[in-house]
């Protein structure tokens, strides 16, 4: 049943790769988003301008174009940089931009911009009095961030983060275009070989719906955790 002309196990491996790309890029996106949101809220004009440029450019350009640019242009750019390192300092390194690295980094960069908007709004939603109280306790700014600002911000950010994750998950399908063997790519190969599009594409669609449904449960649990003390939500 699940054999699918022998493509069943490969499709499953593809699903794992899809999940891997999604998780790694969402980690990158969360980090980039936090940094960018902080830059947007900082008093430094330069940081603010950089962050705004980043989020504006990302919102104007299709994901696929950015991915193609990074995949085909990334190696040339990196090579030029390492050549320069070798000529100038004698440092000899080689960095390989393969489809996995290019895909994961592109998706991370794209969703970093969206996460930044979510985090920015959530940081602003935290009651100013909480931060004043923390300052009055003599906490330094890292401690305020870790113990007061971040945990309370997450309550406001979670719905937006959940949405971003769902969109990100579907965006990972694009890595099949630059040749990575995720579940879409394997279904595409199988379709071309066996001439049975529905047999291979429909299980992949179900796979995406399954990952989405499981993540929905996870976000429900997270929401409950971060809303402790705020009554039922």
């Amino acid at each position, binding site marked *: 049943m699940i054999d699918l002309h022998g493509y069943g196990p490969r499709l499953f491996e593809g699903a794992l790769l899809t999940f891997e790309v999604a998780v790694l890029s969402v980690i990158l996106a969360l980090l980039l988003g936090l940094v960018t949101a902080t830059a947007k809220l900082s008093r430094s004009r330069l940081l603010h301008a950089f962050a705004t440029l980043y989020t504006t450019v990302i919102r104007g350009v299709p994901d696929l174009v950015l991915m193609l640019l990074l995949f085909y242009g990334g190696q040339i750019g990196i090579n030029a940089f390492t050549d320069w390192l070798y000529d100038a300092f004698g440092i000899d390194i080689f960095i390989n931009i393969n489809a996995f690295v290019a895909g994961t980094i592109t998706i991370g960069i794209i969703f970093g911009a969206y996460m930044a908007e979510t985090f920015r709004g959530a940081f602003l939603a935290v009651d100013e009095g909480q931060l004043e109280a923390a300052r009055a306790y003599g906490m330094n700014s890292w401690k305020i961030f870790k113990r007061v600002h971040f945990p309370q911000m997450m309550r406001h950010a979670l719905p937006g983060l959940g949405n971003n994750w769902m969109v990100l998950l579907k965006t990972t*399908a694009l890595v099949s275009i630059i040749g990575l063997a995720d579940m879409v790519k394997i279904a*595409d190969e199988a379709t071309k070989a066996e001439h049975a599009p529905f047999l291979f594409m429909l299980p992949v669609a179900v796979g995406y719906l399954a990952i989405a449904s499981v993540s929905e449960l996870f976000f429900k649990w997270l929401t409950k955790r971060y809303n402790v003390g705020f009554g039922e939500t």
Partner: protein
Amino acid sequence: MSVEQLLQTIAGYLNGNDIFTVNTLGMYWDGFVNTVQLVFISLLIGLALAVPLAIGRGSPLKLVSKSIWLYTYIFRGTPLLIQLYLAYYGFAFVPGIQDSWLWFFVQDPLYPALFAFTLNTAAYTTEIFHGAIKSTAKGEIEAARAFGMSKAMMMRRIILPSAFRRALPAYGNEVIFMLHASAIASVVTIMDLTGAAYYVYSRFYAPFPAFIFVAFIYMALSFSIQGFFRHLEKRLLVHLKPNNR
């Protein structure tokens, strides 16, 4: 001035540039036309489909509302690329289609792509409108009922006009999302903007000029759409503006 004449004028500025010749700029122009056409037509049909679907989504008939919910759940929960592949490869396998008049449409990749894009945007738009209809102020409906309006008249005169206005910002995002999503049309051999950029890249092995140029075209398009919707919002959503004088 025709396109050819315009290109001749541009050619004057381009002397010595190896990559951006009249030839490749012409390809970008064709890609631009294809992208705009594809996105505009699918948005238009998708919008027409979404209005009745959004009304049905809130229907008291469980069979109607649940099946529309299932449709939007599936189309919003799976990648557009999968939907595109299903339409592109799948139609050819429908029994008997090769002998019918539909075969003419199936052979050209443009029509399967239009089909997939239309159903996708209709699903998202349905949910946007459904949300806007649901958030209609109770008082407006009560007032309409007090006037003795029938259900259909209330929908036409009260609920839909105010829901459309409230849906405007979210719909503007959906239009930009569709423009960006249309880049995958190049995967099924449609020569859209991204397809043209890919051709220029592979012809000259110049990823930076090819893709950055097309990125700027997409950006210009996105920000024009954004500006258009901001303008609409300013005119149609005046009543929702916070009046801070």
